[in-house]
Every structure is written in C-alpha cells, then in structure tokens.
C-alpha cells in the first residue's frame, strides 16, 4: 500500500493487487477503457493513471498495435477526441448475429449530402445548406438532429437563423478523431471555388 517513489508501477498505491504489486499502466488503461461508455480523452486517462500524457499515448498506441498484431476480437481506436474499445471489423458478422438489435439505419443520399455540407461549413444555417444543394433541407436536417449526428449551435447574429454543427457521435460514426481528419474539400473542387464564402470555414 505504500507509495514508493520509484518509477516502476507508479499507480500501485490504491490498486489493492494481491502480491502488493499494482497493475501496470497498460493494464490500468485497459481496465478503465473497459468501463468507459464513450471515447476517453488522453488527458483524462493520464490523470486517472497518474502518468504524463506522452507516456499514456505511447502505451495506448502499443496496446492498439498489439491487439491488431495478435488479431484479437477487440480493437482500441482513437475517435472523436478520445480512445475507445471496439470490436474488430472482421468480427462484424459474429457480433451482428449476437446483438441482432438496432442495426444502424442507412442514411439517405439527401441526408449524407446535408451532413457533408454541415461538416465542412459548420456552424451553418439551413438556408446555406439548401443553397449549396439546390434543394430544401429542413426535413433532412431534422432527421440528422434526431439521429444525433448534428446539433444546434446557436443562432446567426445577423439573420437570427439557427446554426448547426456536427456532433461527437458524428465523428464516432465516421471513425474520425476530430474534424481536422476530414479530407480536404479542395481536391474535389477543381477551381479556387466558392463564390459564397471562404470555403472550409472554421472546420475545427
């Protein structure tokens, strides 16, 4: 129970391990991730295991790599600004057979396009999105909000229009760790586009 100042297993104090020796950082991280029900930021993990963030990141990456190397059924991934345990993609068939409940409903083309515009233009009003798509998007936007992929983000100071942005769940669904992971839009735009305003906007 005594906290030694050695840099060995730093988190040994309260772990109550049998042989008086606490779990290693890797084991501690595994345990924490096992009870987490959303992506856990590195800073939180670092605080919980009481190690510098850099160490924690290194261990997380090594864990993730080892799971892949060992072809385990789980997978440690960095998404939506944090780390979270997932089942491995190759096991999808088995897991689906087991859960069988709510498979995600596929988004319509309209919803996907609206989501794309919101992702790159956020915060953005419905009217702006409609202008880009050339078609009204009110119903689609409501669906995206209900699905938790998009949320309200205040109102436009000039027009008073409600603004929308993507959510953390959106990042998770796409397996992105942050908005900066979105592919650049420019390669898709042959010319220095965009009459309406400054492109990507405040994507972050």
């Amino acid at each position, binding site marked *: 129970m005594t906290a030694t100042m050695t840099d060995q297993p730093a988190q040994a104090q309260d772990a109550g391990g049998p042989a008086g020796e606490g779990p290693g950082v890797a084991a501690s991280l595994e345990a924490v*991730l*096992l*009870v*987490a*029900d*959303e992506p856990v930021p590195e800073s939180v993990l670092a605080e919980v295991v009481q190690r510098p963030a850099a160490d924690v990141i290194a261990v997380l990456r090594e864990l993730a790599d080892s799971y892949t190397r060992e072809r385990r059924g*789980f*997978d440690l*991934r960095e998404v939506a600004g944090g780390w*979270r*345990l*997932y*089942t*491995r*993609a190759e096991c*999808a068939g088995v*897991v689906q057979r087991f*859960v069988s409940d709510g*498979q*995600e409903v*596929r*988004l319509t*083309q*309209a919803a*996907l*396009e609206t*989501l*794309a*515009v919101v*992702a*790159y233009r956020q915060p953005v009003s419905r009217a702006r999105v409609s202008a*880009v*798509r*050339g*078609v*009204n998007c009110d119903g689609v936007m409501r669906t995206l909000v209900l699905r938790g992929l998009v949320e309200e983000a205040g109102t436009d100071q000039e027009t008073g229009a409600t603004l929308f942005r993507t959510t953390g769940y959106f990042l*998770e*669904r*796409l*397996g992105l760790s942050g908005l900066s992971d979105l*592919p650049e*839009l420019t390669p*898709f*735009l*042959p*010319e220095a*586009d*965009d*009459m309406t305003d400054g492109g990507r906007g405040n994507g972050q």
Partner: protein
Amino acid sequence: MTIMTTGETGETAAAGGFQVHLDVFEGPFDLLLALISKHKLDITEIALSSVTDEFIGYITALADAWELDQASYFLVVAATLLDLKAARLLPSGEVDDEEDLALLEARDLLFARLLQYRAYKEVAALFASRMAEQARRFPRRVQMEPRFAEVLPEVLIGLGAAEFAAIAARMLKPRTPAAVSTAHLHMPQTSVREQAEILLARLRSLRRATFRQLIAGCAGTYEVVARFLAVLELYRDGLVGLDQADPLGELVVCLALRQSSQQDPDQEDDRDHD
C-alpha cells in the same frame, strides 16, 4: 482515393432520345450532374448547353409531381440553361453588351455551384462508405459493474419540476402535420382595375394631366405601381393617350377622344390579356 463517379450514370443511355425514368433527383444540381456524366461529358459550357433539353424534358415529365419549393430551384436552373443554349445558337462575338455579361455571370455562377455541389456529393459518398465500414465495429458500451456503479457521481438534472414538465409536454404534444405557411402572403391592398377607375374619373374632369399629378394622394408605393399599371392598361385599350417629351421626362396622360363617349371601365377586365 480516387474520385468516384456518383449517381445514375451512363450505361442506360441507350441510343435514341431521352428516356424518362423515374429517378428522383435530389435537386437540380443532382440532375444536371447525372445528365452530364451520362453523356460522359466534362463539366464545361458545352456540357451545360447539351444537356439543356434533357434537363427540361425531365422537369416537364415531372410536372405533376412537383413540390413548389423544389420546382423553383429546378426552374431557375432551367432558365439559366436555356439562356446559355440560346447564346450558343447565336453567332458569338465579343462580350460587349451588358446582357452578355450577365449571361456569363450566370453561367459562371452555375458552374461554380455545380462544382461545389459535386464536391460535397463526392464527400458524401466517402461518408457513406466510411459509415458502412465503421458500422462493422461495435463500441464497448455495457452496464457498469455493480461495484463501480455505486461510486458514480451524482446526476445533475439541472431543471426545476416545471421545466421538466415543459420538456415532457413538448415531447408528448401531438404532432400536427406540417402545413404550408401563408404568413408571407399578404392581401393585395388595391387592384389595377380599381386604380383605372380612379384615373378615368380624374381624367374626365382634367382631360389631361401629368402622371405626377395623377398619383397625388396615393397611399403608398403599391398604389403608385398599380396606378402606373392602370395607365398602361388604359393605353393598350386606347382609352388614354401618352406623351413623354424625352426619356425619364414628365409623362403626360390625356383622355382619348373616343373616351368622351363614356365607356364603362367595369367592362374592362384586367385579366384578359393576350
């Protein structure tokens, strides 16, 4: 990753004319892109004027199924395409006149919006494949082990009972079907016909007056406009004569001679143009 061609492309483009198939396109850009890729054309000016007929064919075929707000987007694009096509049929010279410039601007804007839309559409396709791929992975999300559930921090509802009830009320409120708002419509406050009567009455006593005189006492711009339209109607019907010395100069309106023999303006119906 390569850019993927999206949408309903080529193979079905059998020889011989446009075939209506009932794809529902997500807006005019979607349709335009589909047409362009069907013909394996680049997005160029030629592409735009070449697909005009099909574009118009499509919106004609769908004439009965339009929703109003959707139709307007399509019509704006169709009008622009027609302009562009017409311009290509004419011998082209240098751009020197304002109409040409406006046309060029319209074309460039249409290009830009089309390209922009295509970019988002391609990204949307990436999103779709990405999501499909991600859906194969299930996140860990299970109930807390009992020994830890006890140490979970308190939950903060952060609302008073009334606010909480308001949320419930909002959720449980029966949903009324969406209705088209007519709030932006307003009742016309006057009619051309009404103004025509006023005009004729005045002219019968004055015989001749400037337009400025004739609009004295108008309640607002809408009335001035209506009265001006009434002047045009009366002129068309030969009931008044107009005289204007120079452009933007004073407009003088006089009662036509045959008007002296009292024709009843009520027989005039301002809907019977053409």
